């Protein structure tokens, strides 16, 4: 009952705010009124002598004021002795006493960022007062490259923040991790956009953030350490990213337009066998197996290249983005309206992303003691991806090079009849005729009221909601391509979810000479609800209509589901500042989550941080070259409650169809002891600004102890069958690391300036405990182990066999010394090398041309005990390096980022070098081991008579049973994932203001940009940036949609 009251109240509250603002909006008027003695006028210009337009000029202590016009000119009535205040965004404020009727003013750009106000969660703070590790990414930083989504804007720009695309598809999934792997279950930070919390958890191939238009953003604050994030308690374990979008400013209305056009390309193809090589391979295969030789392949040299299917499914694709924003307002009411449109064709056939967005930010002072505001955002997107989800990339690798894309009559090319009975679809036909897209509408709405109850005491109450509607459309067409047939099937699913957050807090500020205090306390409740409805049908007669109603009614299936979760919190913060030298921040939060049973529901998250601004000490006063030195020390506990199952502490019945009606069984193992994951973190930081702020250096060191790690238990398959594994507090781990940021102005001479920014991060992870003493966590794909996590080691390391060579002839089956002679035992017999368990030397077992694995434990048998760690997916360090050159009106930015020392498991090579395959082989397969008889008249099954002919053989022999499991998980497929990427190069030109004023244009910049220009890497797959949705299966590359190279041309225009 109470629940409905709360919900209704929130909506009615939002409604009230909307009404108030609606009534006020016509009252957006200029306040400047003129009635004074003397007319003062002048020109306001920049240091470069460009007139500044829209500079606010006010008389101190009054509400009187004006703004400069397009020539930088202003006129104001003032008394002699009045103080005029000139303020302009990005410039230092100037206060000048009126002495005559002409007052020309030069304003300096504000390089001193320390007084900038930073959003910190339930409030703001001056940057100089920060005690925690907070990194800002500003609109200016983001403008240096073209970002289609928010997460791209983050990549490489903030130390300690690692962004990896899980898919390069337009609108594709991204994983962002702050300070290493923080959890076994989801690593995405919490995003708070203008006060509305949004989970960063990607689902499948689409990003939760793809609906946010990055052009709306003014700043992003990345809260990294626990003392900064603890105020977000339960949802803070993975860090918090606070996003502020454009707000209106008092003054002239500004209209600006940003737009660009771009072309995207596939930077790299996989090298697969061409037709000649494929024919050679087929001939070899027929020879080994004894049949299946094809007449047309008799002389491969007569054949051409055949079809390069990858070329056929990838293309150069255009993208364009337009953004229009209007900002303005009066002293009382400020507004910003932003409308955007993005359309992006993917480089893969049949992929596309489109987004419309509209954002309105409005705030107004109704009374002296009452400010209200509203933030509204609506976005609609459509994401088409037939290539990723339909397995088209894989089909393109598998389909034979002999098959043409189209036959001479225009019909789709198809395979000839073959003895394997395996037929692949035509990937081009597939990508073009399959339907797979989703449409979504996101609505974010927040209303707030600030009430000044008493001097220094403010009550803020805010209500926000985030409502999403998604519909997913899929259709697999009826297809008969020669021997390949495909039945039609269609499905539709529609889901809606809503998030409602109600939040009230009181802030009290008090300043007494050298002491200043700030106390905040509040309450928050959050509720999530989601519903889903889906249906499918098969048996469509034609492909022209895809709606379910034309499918076969007998095949109809449908389902629906519903879920809800809630969090309730109490929180408080205490700030103390003594003489701008000693700063203290303490926070406390208590959260209750519906994910846990009543006994384990609530947890408390405290934090304390101290900062010492050494530069404000007396003894530093004379050190002029040091502008700022601050030492920060923080400690805090944050939590994680995010599990995918709302009722993991109990048993939900799974429903399953049976021929005699719906059946039910206990769907999960319950865990009534399940509790919060807790991260205890320490942070030590140093901020240093030197030489007139030309050098800014920030260093942070952290140590995080994460305990009660939440995850779905990794159980052996004899218990983890149909009943899903319980959620458990699986263990504990630590992350230790260091982050360095160095921003410098290297040269600033006349109109030339060279600035650079370097970020560098190191993180080391170690698992310190697991929930049953000797159990280990296994990362599993299809029942096979790929990673192994045990105490004392980093999480999710690749775990497999070591290849020590290939059996080239009979002598290789016996141990050898360094020079290649067989070793002998006491009796003078050769010592056999270890073979896989229960396997012997034999054509159908282990033979010449097979791989030799290392017998790690020297027990003479190759089995699971010989597995070892063969690669850590975590990088040794990551870095970003940005250089900006400006000369007169030109600017050039080069941004490089890189990752060093991580290992990738190239599953593509594991799958596509396997000579068990009939097709789908990489170039590497031209080096398949070919066997020859030493004595051509001797027996083929006599091991002493067989050897490998080609000395460069790097792929095992062709054999139908592969009893040696040559392609087992081994270090053969582990590759170095280090890379250095020229992520972005942009060149811009800003037109001189003097020229623009003639056209009433305030600002115009045009630019050209190249993204992902080149990647230096030894990795042989598509892209060394391999994402993952699962901590235990990181860096396992299984043909994801590759990232593209993008050439962009664009303009920013402000009126």
């Amino acid at each position, binding site marked *: 009952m109470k629940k409905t009251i*709360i919900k209704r109240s929130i909506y009615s*509250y939002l409604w009230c705010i909307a009404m108030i603002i609606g009534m006020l909006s016509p009252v957006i008027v200029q306040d400047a009124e003129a009635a004074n003695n003397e007319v003062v006028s002048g020109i306001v210009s920049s240091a470069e002598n460009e007139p500044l337009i829209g500079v606010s000029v006010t008389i101190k202590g009054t509400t009187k004021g004006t703004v400069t016009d397009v020539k930088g000119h202003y006129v104001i009535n003032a008394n002699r002795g009045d103080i005029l205040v000139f303020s302009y965004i990005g410039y230092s404020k100037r206060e000048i006493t009126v002495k005559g009727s002409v007052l020309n003013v030069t304003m300096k750009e504000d390089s001193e960022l320390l007084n900038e106000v930073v959003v910190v969660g339930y409030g703001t703070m001056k940057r100089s007062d920060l005690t925690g590790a907070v990194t800002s990414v500003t609109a200016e930083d983001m403008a240096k490259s073209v970002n289609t989504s928010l997460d791209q804007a983050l990549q490489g720009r903030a130390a300690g923040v690692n962004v990896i695309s899980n898919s390069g598809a337009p609108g594709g999934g991204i994983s962002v991790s702050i300070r290493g792997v923080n959890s076994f279950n989801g690593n995405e930070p919490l995003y708070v956009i203008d006060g509305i919390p949004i989970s960063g958890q990607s689902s499948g191939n689409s990003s939760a953030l793809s609906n946010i238009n990055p052009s709306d953003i003014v700043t992003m604050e990345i809260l990294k350490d626990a003392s900064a994030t603890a105020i977000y308690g339960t949802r803070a374990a993975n860090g918090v990213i606070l996003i502020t979008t454009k707000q209106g400013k008092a003054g002239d209305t500004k209209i600006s337009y940003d737009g660009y056009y771009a072309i995207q390309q596939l930077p790299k193809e996989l090298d697969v066998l061409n037709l000649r090589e494929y024919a050679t391979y087929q001939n070899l295969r027929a020879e080994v197996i004894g049949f299946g030789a094809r007449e047309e392949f008799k002389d491969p040299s007569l054949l051409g290249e055949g079809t390069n299917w990858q070329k056929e499914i990838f293309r150069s694709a255009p993208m364009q983005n337009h953004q229009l924003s209007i900002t303005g307002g009066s002293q009382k009411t400020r507004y910003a309206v932003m409308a955007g449109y993005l359309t992006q064709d993917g480089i893969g056939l049949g992929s596309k992303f489109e987004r419309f967005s509209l954002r309105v930010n409005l705030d107004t002072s109704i009374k002296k003691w009452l400010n209200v505001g509203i933030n509204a955002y609506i976005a609609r997107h459509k994401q088409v991806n037939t290539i990723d989800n339909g397995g088209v990339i894989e089909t393109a690798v598998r389909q034979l090079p002999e098959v043409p894309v189209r036959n001479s009559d225009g019909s789709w090319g198809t395979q000839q009849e073959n003895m394997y009975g395996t037929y692949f679809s035509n990937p081009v036909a597939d990508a073009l005729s399959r339907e797979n897209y989703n449409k979504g509408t996101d609505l974010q709405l927040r209303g707030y009221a600030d*009430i000044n109850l008493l001097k220094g005491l403010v009550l803020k109450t805010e209500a926000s909601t985030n409502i999403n509607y998604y519909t997913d459309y899929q259709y697999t067409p009826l297809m008969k391509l020669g021997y390949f047939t495909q039945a039609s099937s269609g499905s539709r699913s529609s889901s809606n979810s809503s998030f409602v957050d109600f939040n009230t807090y009181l802030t009290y500020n008090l300043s007494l000479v050298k002491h200043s205090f700030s106390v905040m306390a509040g309450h928050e409740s959050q509720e999530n609800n989601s519903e889903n409805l889906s249906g499918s049908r098969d048996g469509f007669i034609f492909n022209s209509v895809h709606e379910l109603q034309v499918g076969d009614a007998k095949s109809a299936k449908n389902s629906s589901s519903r879920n809800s979760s809630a969090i309730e919190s109490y929180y408080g913060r205490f700030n103390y500042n003594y003489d701008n030298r000693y700063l203290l921040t303490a926070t406390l939060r208590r959260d209750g989550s519906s994910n846990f049973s009543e006994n384990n529901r609530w947890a408390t998250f405290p934090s304390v941080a101290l900062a010492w601004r050494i530069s404000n000490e007396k003894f530093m006063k004379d050190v002029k070259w040091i502008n700022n030195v601050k030492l920060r020390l923080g400690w805090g506990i944050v939590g994680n409650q995010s599990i995918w199952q709302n009722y993991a502490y109990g048993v939900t019945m799974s429903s*399953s169809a049976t021929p*005699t009606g*719906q059946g039910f069984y206990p769907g999960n193992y319950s865990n009534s002891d399940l509790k919060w994951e807790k991260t205890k973190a320490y942070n030590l930081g140093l901020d240093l600004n030197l030489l007139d702020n030309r050098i800014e250096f920030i260093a942070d060191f952290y140590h995080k102890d994460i305990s009660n790690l939440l995850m779905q238990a990794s159980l052996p398959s*004899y218990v983890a069958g149909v009943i899903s594994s319980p959620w458990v507090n699986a263990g504990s781990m630590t992350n230790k690391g260091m982050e360095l940021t160095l921003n410098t102005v290297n040269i600033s001479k006349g109109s030339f300036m060279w600035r650079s920014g370097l970020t560098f991060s190191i993180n080391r992870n170690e698992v310190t405990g697991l929930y049953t003493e000797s159990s280990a966590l296994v990362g599993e794909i299809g029942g096979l*182990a790929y990673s192994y996590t045990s105490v004392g080691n980093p999480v999710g390391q690749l775990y497999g066999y070591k290849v020590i060579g290939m059996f080239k002839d009979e002598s290789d089956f016996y141990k050898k010394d360094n020079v290649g002679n067989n070793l002998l035992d006491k009796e003078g017999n050769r010592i056999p090398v270890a073979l896989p368990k229960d396997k012997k030397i034999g054509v159908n077992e282990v033979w010449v041309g097979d791989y030799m694995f290392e017998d790690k434990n020297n027990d003479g048998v190759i*089995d699971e005990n010989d597995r070892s760690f063969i690669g850590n997916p975590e990088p040794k360090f990551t870095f970003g390096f940005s250089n900006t050159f400006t000369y007169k009106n030109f600017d050039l930015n080069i941004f490089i980022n890189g990752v060093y020392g991580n290992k990738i498991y190239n599953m593509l090579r594991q799958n596509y070098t396997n000579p068990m395959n009939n097709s789908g082989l990489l170039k590497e397969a031209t080096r398949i081991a070919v066997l020859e008889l030493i004595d051509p008249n001797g027996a083929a099954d006599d091991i002493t008579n067989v050897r490998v002919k080609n000395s460069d053989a790097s792929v095992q022999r062709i054999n139908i*049973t592969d009893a040696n499991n040559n392609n087992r998980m081994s270090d053969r497929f582990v590759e170095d994932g280090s890379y250095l990427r020229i992520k972005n190069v942009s060149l811009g030109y800003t037109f001189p203001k003097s020229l623009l004023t003639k056209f009433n244009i305030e600002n115009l910049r045009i630019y050209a940009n190249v993204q992902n220009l080149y990647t230096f890497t030894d990795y042989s797959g598509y892209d060394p940036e391999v994402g993952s949705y699962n901590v235990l299966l990181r860096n396992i590359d299984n043909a994801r949609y590759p990232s593209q190279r993008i050439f962009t041309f664009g303009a920013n225009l402000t009126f």
Partner: protein
Amino acid sequence: MKRNISYILLLSLFTLTLGSCSDDFLDRTPKGAYTDADFYTSASALKAATAPLYTRAWFDYNRSALAIGSCRANDCYGQWFLPAYTLFTITALDNEVSSAWQAFYSVVTMSNATIESINQKATGVTEQEKNQAIAECRLMRGIAYFYLLRTWGPVILFDNNDVVVKNPLQPRHKEADVFQFIINDLTYAAENLPAVADKGRASSWGAKGVLAKVYLSRSGWDNGGTRNQEDLDKAIQYAADVCNNCGLNLIDYENLYKYKYNNNEESMIAMQWVPNGEWYVCNTLLSDLAFSTDVTGGVNCWSSLNGTIDLLRQYEKGDAKRLKATYFINNTFYSYINIKDGGYTYDGTSSPIKKGVPGGPDDDNDGYVKVMNSPLNTYILRLADVYLTYAEASLGNNETLSSGDGLKFFNKVRKRAGLAEKSSISFDDIIRERRVEFAMEYCNWYDMVSWYKYKPEKMLKYFNDQKRGWTCNQITKDDYGNIVINDADLQAPTTPVVVTNDNIFLPYPEKDLLQNPRLKEEPQSYNFNK
């Protein structure tokens, strides 16, 4: 100022009402699904709770059934599909090894969980209804363990999931204890299941039939080449009871493998797949079995499996009925496949798989044929199996069996196949009869393992004489419909297959060995008195 204060009061009040939530704000018991606490409350709920034991629980066993039950028995062979099972080159990394292991244990864990829930949570149902539901669970658990035993030998026994979830590092148990565990389960099932069950569900006769098989298997298991008389007697007792009293009958052999004959009179226990069902509840084997879209009404399929020379040569002259229902052999006509074109005649000279291929969606299948989706049940036990078990148990340790009910029921199976009755049968006759009767029914290998445990040398020789890996593309029929395979057309594999004592049982899946090294420890005794 006065006004301000009243505002403050008003706002504070407003904030307070919106502030703290009531306790149940954080209580989010699922609204979209049942929970175990409120589910087991009626007789029909208990039925719904045991139904997935026939369907969902076995899903992962689909392809492994073919691999282990048939390919390994050399019923069929394909160079491109599961060859390692026929050629005995399986490793712990094999897919079907892990999926069979997982599927059998899925049956075990689902049974355990359901028994536990019924015992703890059931309300509003009679003791008898409870016992019957528990009996169904125990029947399925016993059957799953029987498969596990014959695939891996010693395995982990458990009847309480929570213990194993909390501590997954459990040891294996001795084969004798696995047998005892199975017998306990099946005996309970035989006593508590009704004589006449709902369609598609097991009756007490089904439980007794399996029990007879278990006793027969145990009688010779590691027993020095003879069969234990006590177990034989038990096997005879249960088999005779079923054969004489169950009231069921054999039906036309070919009809056994038609959709419309699912749960026919002969079917005693079967996996109940959902026609046109979704993944996890459907019979996926259609596309693995069917060799051409000509026999599936255009539904995509990819089988490269063929009946082996070894098995085809087990067919006696005149055994055309069973041959036709099991393999496509040259010049054989099927009126019920491709009905709209007047039927289908196989004119190739290989021996693709017929059993499990019921035709296309437009044939007599109500449209329920799709890629990897056939509407056919998978037999766990049918009456003919109990008949042959009766005969084998009656033969016991004797050289021949030439009288009595055992022989009578043996001959019923032959008669149904259209073959002449035998006046005397030997162990070899039983092996041959079973192989033909159950060819491509995913069970021959399991029986072979029992025989191997009874007479290891004999069966090793048998396995090694099976011409494993041999192929022939010139299989035809003579004028009388008998199969013709000339030795000259045979193609031998590059190296002969060697079956040894070391590779009869499958390796434990490597992933589980990594997670539980105790699987390598010596098997322990199971504590039955917990």
